[in-house]
């Protein structure tokens, strides 16, 4: 299939269809509304089903129900909406059902603004709802990767019967870039889910719940979930490196859009003989600590650049214990330019 020019939000919708998803329950919020708009238009062509819910709370619980029925299902939202969805995300994790959520992050806190931000990093990786659980978090930095990760997200959600979140920002959602989609998955050919609610015909009833009043049973669930998270940590870490060498002046840590701004700054300084490498986690949970630490060991100085006041920096510190980790970021929806970032790098290297 040829490359097509598409908005990130639309590519997310199309990729979900390619992954065999035929159900979307959502609620409009800037800057992700193109996803529901795209699917509302596109779904009838593939016998898909779109519902505009009355709220994000309802949308996420519709997803929860849909997942219980064993079908691939998607919802997308942006920061304030994701906070409302955190209820259902926790329930999905506790019930162990596969769902894919997309957060096209906008600046906060509160109603905040509608411009790009990475301020939901902590929420996604640490606090995506009440209780003791983790979700897989995938962070694309271009439209092609957003599409690829959506396809991957559905597979991972099924594999681990766990929520998976795609964490992007307003730029990823609004930007148009060429994208080439993978093969269309026929939902009919997906593996059976014997645990799903399909009617107890010729079998014992299936019960899907996250309520376990017996503390021993609940602890057993917690331990089973933990084992699942350990397995994710063992095999699902993904990352990208750029311009890594053995004796770098600086190692830059960035995810999503910021990694691309960082690359431009790195290229510019390379022309002046300054060696800077970039480490970009693609999975924010599980975070690729070992690989991030190895990059740190080759650099004189470290910096995390983010569209926040510094959230991923915590993970960089965990990856490089004992090292000083510097920070540069803008907030409020302001995206620093490559020149801003370059100057920050220079200042740090020369200090």
């Amino acid at each position, binding site marked *: 299939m040829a490359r097509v020019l598409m908005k990130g939000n639309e590519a997310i919708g199309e990729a979900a269809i390619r992954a065999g998803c035929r159900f979307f329950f959502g609620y409009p919020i800037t800057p992700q509304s193109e996803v529901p708009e795209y699917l509302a238009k596109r779904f009838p062509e593939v016998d898909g089903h779109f519902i505009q819910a009355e709220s994000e709370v309802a949308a996420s619980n519709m997803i929860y129900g849909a997942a219980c029925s*064993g079908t691939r299902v998607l919802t997308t939202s942006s920061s304030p909406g994701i906070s409302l969805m955190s209820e259902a995300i926790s329930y999905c994790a506790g019930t162990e059902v596969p769902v894919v959520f997309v957060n096209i992050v906008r600046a906060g806190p509160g109603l905040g603004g509608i411009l790009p931000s990475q301020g939901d990093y902590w929420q996604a990786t640490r606090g995506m709802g009440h209780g003791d659980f983790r979700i897989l978090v995938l962070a694309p930095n271009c439209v092609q990767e957003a599409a690829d990760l959506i396809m991957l997200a559905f597979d991972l959600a099924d594999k681990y019967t766990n929520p998976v979140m795609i964490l992007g920002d307003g730029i990823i959602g609004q930007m148009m870039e060429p994208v080439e989609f993978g093969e269309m998955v026929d939902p009919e050919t997906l593996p059976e889910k014997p645990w799903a609610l399909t009617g*107890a015909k010729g079998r014992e009833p299936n019960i899907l*719940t996250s309520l376990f009043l017996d503390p021993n049973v609940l602890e057993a669930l917690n331990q089973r979930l933990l084992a699942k998270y350990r397995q994710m940590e063992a095999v699902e870490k993904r990352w990208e490196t750029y311009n890594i060498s053995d004796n770098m002046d600086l190692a830059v840590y960035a995810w999503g859009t910021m990694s691309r701004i960082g690359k431009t700054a790195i290229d510019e300084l390379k022309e002046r003989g300054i060696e800077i490498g970039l480490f970009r986690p693609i999975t924010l949970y599980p975070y690729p600590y070992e690989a991030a630490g190895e990059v740190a060991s080759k650099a004189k100085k470290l910096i995390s650049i983010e569209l926040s006041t510094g959230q991923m920096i915590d993970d960089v510190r965990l990856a490089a214990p004992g090292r000083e980790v510097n920070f540069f970021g803008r907030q409020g929806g302001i995206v620093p330019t490559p020149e801003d970032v370059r100057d920050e790098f220079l200042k740090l290297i020369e200090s």
Partner: protein
Amino acid sequence: MIETIFSRPESLREVSTHYCPGCTHGITHRLIAEVLDELGLRERTVGVAPVGCAVLAYNYFNCDFAEAAHGRAPAMATGIKRCRPNLIVFTYQGDGDLASIGTAEIFHAANRGEKFTVIFVNNAIYGMTGGQMAPTTMPNQKATTCPFGRDVETAGYPVRVCEVLSKITTPSYIARVTAAVPKEIPRAKDALRKAFQYQAENRCFSLVEFVSTCPTNWGMNPLKACEWAVSDMMPYYPLGEFKTPDDPLPAGLNLIEGDE
């Protein structure tokens, strides 16, 4: 030869419930199970349990079941029914779940005309959490969070779910019944039968409200509680059918003709 004319329905598991003695939840469960049996729906039914006294309902029904977050059963049921339209889906919700925290979800599920069935148990109090005020608590009725009785000046009047939902234009089946009066139980079953039948025919959203009792938190014995439901609740929560899918649409609707 003795013919058994009344025994446990197949759709109800052979287990004892956790409900208090005399709680009409048990009768409501049984009636649903009998209807599922009689209509032959058990093997394609999925129930959605609420948060509230019926939180463990999935342990009692002999069909697939999911547990919803508080108030979200209609949203969850929407997800299940839309993904698998051949299933028979019902939610089982109390007054706090449906008429307080889940008001938006029930209202919009009804308004979208979701083809599932809602069993709404209204006992005018929060049972599971220990007798707090419900949106359906009667004026001057005492509860632990309105120890001097519900003050309508500050808490408003009790919410009448059937009256509100039956004002929605989208065709639906809305009925209020009770299991607190023996002779009303057959009528309650009739309403449930209709509700599930309409769903099986893919006709409309259906909701059956049960005026129910809470002997424990009302502080009455079961019989007294049934009498109180009749004397103090039913004048305000009258029984009957409030809406059927055969009702004419209101005048003034300009329905756009389809191009079929």
